[in-house]
């Protein structure tokens, strides 16, 4: 080892060729975001506030403020009269009437249908355990990731309710011990994963990135592994990647690619119950 280390140190260093440097720097120049105007950033908000103030003051002075009636409260003045309400378009009045009738007819104490009950029961059986794990995981998350995880929770609950009974059974088996890595970066998750047994994995990742970066990310994920992945955009900022890797190697490969995207956060990795033979 020491010989090789010595050789490693003594061997000449090869330098980056000037041609490559020029190409990279040219690319950096062409892709550089336009410089922000410092003046506008510093004074823009203050100038806008002053302008809005002047315009508002001018309008008030020109029109004059109507005095409030002595007997009427401001709320009374803002409420439409019965006559004004009756002037609503006929169709709209009819719609409002229909809605009221529907609400009156609805019996909110009645049990939901059998299919919904089953879904709710499944959610009750399954989600608390999941939620517990994710609450524990949330403690280790930075503040900007936590809302995304909560959104994931909601999306997952909604998605589970929509599943057919058979699919739900599969999903139930997929949500196993809920082993969530303590730190949610792709690198840590990858490290955690490399120390697990070789089973199948269901992976959910939350990624915050721009649209352009998103395209790169998707391309890289597709390139990295043959595993099926489902992408789901949330709030125009977070991307959820649901994936199912047939083995640990595929899962590690996927996470390895994600490490190129420093803001990619792993929401959860769940080992499927069945061991890969």
């Amino acid at each position, binding site marked *: 080892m020491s010989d*090789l280390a010595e050789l490693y140190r003594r*061997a000449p260093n090869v330098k980056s060729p000037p041609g490559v440097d020029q190409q*990279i720097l040219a690319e950096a120049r062409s892709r550089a*975001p336009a410089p922000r105007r410092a003046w506008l950033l510093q004074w823009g908000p203050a100038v806008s506030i002053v302008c809005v103030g002047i315009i508002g003051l001018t309008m008030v002075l020109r029109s004059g403020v109507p005095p409030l009636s002595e007997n009427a409260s401001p709320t009374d003045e803002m409420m439409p009269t019965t006559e004004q309400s009756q002037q609503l378009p006929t169709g709209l009045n009819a719609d409002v009437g229909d809605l009221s009738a529907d609400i009156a007819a609805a019996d909110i104490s009645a049990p939901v249908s059998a299919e919904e009950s089953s879904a709710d029961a499944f959610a009750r059986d399954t989600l608390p355990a999941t939620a517990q794990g994710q609450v524990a995981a949330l403690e280790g998350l930075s503040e900007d990731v936590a809302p995304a995880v909560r959104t994931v929770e909601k999306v997952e609950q909604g998605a589970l309710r929509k599943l057919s009974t058979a699919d739900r059974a599969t999903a139930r088996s997929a949500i196993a011990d809920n082993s969530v890595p303590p730190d949610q*970066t792709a690198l840590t998750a*990858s490290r955690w994963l490399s120390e697990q047994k070789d089973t199948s994995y269901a992976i959910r990742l939350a990624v915050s990135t721009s649209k352009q*970066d998103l395209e790169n990310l998707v391309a890289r994920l597709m390139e990295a592994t043959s595993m099926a992945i489902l992408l789901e955009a949330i709030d125009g900022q977070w991307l959820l990647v649901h994936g199912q890797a047939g083995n640990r190697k595929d899962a590690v490969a996927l996470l390895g690619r994600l490490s190129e995207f420093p803001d990619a956060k792993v929401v959860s990795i769940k080992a499927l119950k069945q061991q890969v033979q």
Partner: protein
Amino acid sequence: MGTFAKFTRSDASLLQSYAKSGDVAAFETLYGRHKDALFNYLFRSLGQFAAAEEIAQEVWMVVIKQAGSYQKRDATLRAWLYTIGRNKVIDFQRRRVNQAYTDIGDAAIPDSALSAEQRVFMDQLLVQLNNLPAEQRDAFMLQQEGFSHKEICKITGVGSETVKSRLRYARASLKQRVGES
């Protein structure tokens, strides 16, 4: 950017200036700091000059595109660069899976780049590196590039014990080879 500031600003700060304000000079400084070391690492990993050129461009393209989303808390910028580089090297090697790791005849370093003596050293190094299994070579090279165990764990995505055992195995396999010869 003043000369003093150029040398004192952190990598993360330079990248941030480029990403947020389009400060190309900041990117040039950053590029100047890392380009040769990264290229050298890529060349030694791949054993081919042309391939190293291609991969270096790909790595820096990722940096340019991802500059806005780089966050310091995950890893140092240098570790991030090498993580991307390592992944690109693995991709490249997968693409040429049927070829030998390195064919010294194909290294094709430009004539002006190295003297005859330096070329001998380089050939010896590439042969020795080629003799190590990929994972052990990875760990060894990153260690030689000055990364700590912790950083190697981050770059390779494996645990500390795994890194230590890879380095241990690399040492053992080299000893065995020396014994055989």
